[in-house]
């Protein structure tokens, strides 16, 4: 096999000219591979089954979202952010809308904030469900995938009823929400919560004490809290390493300061802890939604914003806790209707950097487990 031009730190060893020809094996995992969650390409350098090093090659799903933003007005760009992390479109929209609101110096009315929290937390549950299903599938347990997709459907139905779309929802507008909640929204959400609570136990029953699952995930893909911070890793991966950092608590946005919830953390920073943290997060999300849906205040859903958005000259960075970690938007405004520059800080992209550190010295099967546990979405990595 010829060395690939991409391989930088994976330099090939001296070619062994003996009969056995025993140099390392370089294999190409992806971009078409069932377990790379999209079009991630990982070049693996293997010694038998042991991983000596990895190199991620990204960009197969690059659409130039940040550049597109420079040629669209603030309002027009809103639907584009849904296409980055397409399994957590609501979170993306929330981050963008809040960033622009901050830039414009407007604040969404309380009712809109509550609706935003409910939908975002529902979206966090769908994102974690999708993660759980695919992660378990990668490790070989095929059944949880169908269970999670069955329950995810119920949330998507609520989204569809609310804004007509299931995945790329475009649920929020700059300054609030476009749609008033439909008749029976609260009942639907409450019904879903009652339906969903036992389902989390069902997922846990399938996996948490499953001997093979524990063996496959405990001690796999270790990363310490310090390393996480050094690499900028955020979200459940950071929390599973024992760092209590959640932007919903640290820098509350939307209406999160009104609700009681805990930040689940792990101790070991391995795949099993990340699994437990995400499962606990689903329960916390349920708790937040329960509080929010009971107390949606009356009032307008849209703040007073001008028809043509022309934010003052300046720059703003606003970040939210997306299901995968810190999702930040950095917007530079030159006073026109279009952003001068828009930069997205995608959690998946930053978290993916930890892959190499987490899999070195482990086995091929662990690479799959770690890619799954990092919970990356290539739409967001490549943008």
């Amino acid at each position, binding site marked *: *096999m010829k060395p690939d031009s991409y391989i930088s730190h994976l330099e090939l060893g001296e070619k062994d000219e003996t009969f056995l020809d025993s140099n390392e*094996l370089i*294999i*190409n995992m992806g971009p078409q*591979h*069932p*377990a790379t969650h999209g079009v991630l390409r990982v070049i693996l350098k293997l010694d*038998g*089954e042991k991983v000596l090093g990895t190199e991620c090659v990204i960009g197969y799903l690059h659409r130039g979202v940040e550049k597109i933003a420079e040629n669209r007005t603030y309002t027009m760009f809103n639907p584009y952010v849904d296409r980055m992390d397409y399994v957590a479109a609501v979170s993306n929209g929330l981050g963008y809308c809040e960033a622009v609101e901050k830039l414009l110096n407007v604040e969404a009315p309380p009712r809109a904030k509550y609706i935003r929290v409910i939908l975002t937390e529902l979206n966090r549950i769908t994102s974690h469900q999708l993660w759980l299903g695919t992660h*378990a*599938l*990668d*490790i*070989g*347990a*095929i*059944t949880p*995938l*169908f*269970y999670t997709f*069955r329950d995810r459907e119920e949330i998507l139905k609520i989204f569809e009823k609310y804004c007509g779309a299931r995945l790329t929802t475009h649920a929020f507008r700059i300054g609030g929400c476009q749609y008033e909640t439909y008749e029976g929204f609260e009942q639907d959400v409450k019904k879903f919560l009652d339906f969903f609570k036992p389902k989390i136990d069902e997922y846990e029953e399938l*996996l948490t004490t*499953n001997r*093979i*699952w524990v*063996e*496959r995930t405990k001690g796999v893909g270790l990363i310490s809290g310090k390393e996480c911070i050094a690499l900028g890793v955020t979200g459940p991966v950071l929390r599973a390493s024992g760092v209590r950092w959640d932007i919903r608590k640290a820098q509350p946005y939307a209406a999160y300061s009104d609700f009681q919830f805990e930040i689940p953390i792990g101790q070991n920073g391995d795949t099993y802890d990340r699994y437990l943290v995400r499962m606990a997060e689903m329960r916390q999300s349920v708790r937040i939604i329960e509080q929010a849906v009971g107390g949606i205040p009356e009032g307008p859903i849209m703040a007073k914003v001008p028809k043509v958005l022309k934010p003052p000259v300046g720059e703003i960075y606003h970040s939210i806790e997306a299901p995968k970690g810190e999702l930040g938007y950095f917007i530079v405004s030159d006073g026109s209707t279009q952003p001068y520059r828009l930069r997205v800080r995608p959690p998946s992209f930053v978290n993916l950097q930890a892959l190499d550190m987490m899999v070195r010295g482990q*086995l*091929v*099967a*662990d690479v*799959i487990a770690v890619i799954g546990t990092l919970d990356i979405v290539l739409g967001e990595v490549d943008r």
Partner: protein
Amino acid sequence: MLDYITSYLRSNTTPGQAGNIFWAFVYIVLIFLGLSIAVIAMNWLERKILAHMQVRLGPMRVGPHGLLQPIADALKLLLKEDIMPAEADKAVFWAAPLMVVITAFTVFIVVPFGPTHAVTDMNIGILFMLGVSSLGVLGIVMAGWASNSHYPLIGALRSSAQMVSYEIAMGLAVVAAVLMTSLSGIGVYGIGGSGDGTGTLSMIGIVQAQQAQHVWFIFKFFPLGLIAFFIFAVAMVAETNRAPFDLPEAESELTAGFHTEYSGFRWSLFFLAEYSAMIAVSSIAVTLWLGGWMRPFPTWLSGETWDLIFSLFPAATFLLLALIAFLGTIRMPKHPYFRIQTLGLGGFAVLLGLIGLVLLIPDVRNRVQDIYWFSIKVAGFMYLYIWYRGTFPRYRFDQLMKMGWKVLLPMGIGVLILTALVGVL
């Protein structure tokens, strides 16, 4: 000539022993057909059962309840383009699936479906079976090597390593069972256990030994038989590369493992071989530990009445299946769009019912009973295979090795030694 054909019917040995080539050929054809049908049925059942475990319906479109799906799939595979990678080792690439499929079918020569229902009865039957079935791994290694591609290569490596580690534990468990044929003693805790011991390696002999000792070997020298059976039951899953030990073809890691580069008919040969290998090892387990063709409780529930009741089971099973199919026919939507499907399902119900009725004829039911009990026990194992697949994640390579060498192997040696000791005492 006619005499040559009919004379065998009155004998009570296998065609191979009777030296009757005609009937041996008939048996081979019957086993081949039966096995193919079993693989097709298994394919459908696996998809259906797995689907129902996973809150979905499985195949529903081709034929009533997707009954024709395996046939449609087989047709599709036959019609696919035959692709051979340019860099592949042509001869080996061609030979590998044949190697796998031939070994998978050859083992059935000695599988005893009944005291006379086997192609032949070798005095080294179990050795032959283990030997030939482990040759199949060679085919897998050949396939992985000849593809000249990385994923298949890793799959092949995993497969050979897996075979080495599990074959030994499996062999030890088998030796324990063979030892039990010669140890007639009640031992310290044996249940039943009377009659003389006959040391034998013949597949039919092993079942006859269980018959003579009035005990299935799974219960003999409790719990030794059970442990040996457990070792075998784990090792046989690893041996056939099925979940949770499906590392050589680990879909999410190695795309499709050793058969990544295979497609169309060649791939279907691997598929066929995998399923017939599953049936083969399950038959070994049934023969060695679960009393082969014997009906349940031959000692406790003996006597003419019980014999009659148990001999009605095959017919009852088919009639029950016919009833289920018939109820399904009634419940079909009454729309013209479904007319052909409804007719098909009804026809299927009638076919099953007819088979059930034929099985009520005394001569037939007495002759076929053995095959029925054997198949039911094997089917139980097949269900277990599907169940494992629906439940377990996949083991990692090193964990698999640890399990083979550090758990199953010492257990196997221990069981073997204890069996010998207990038998002599």
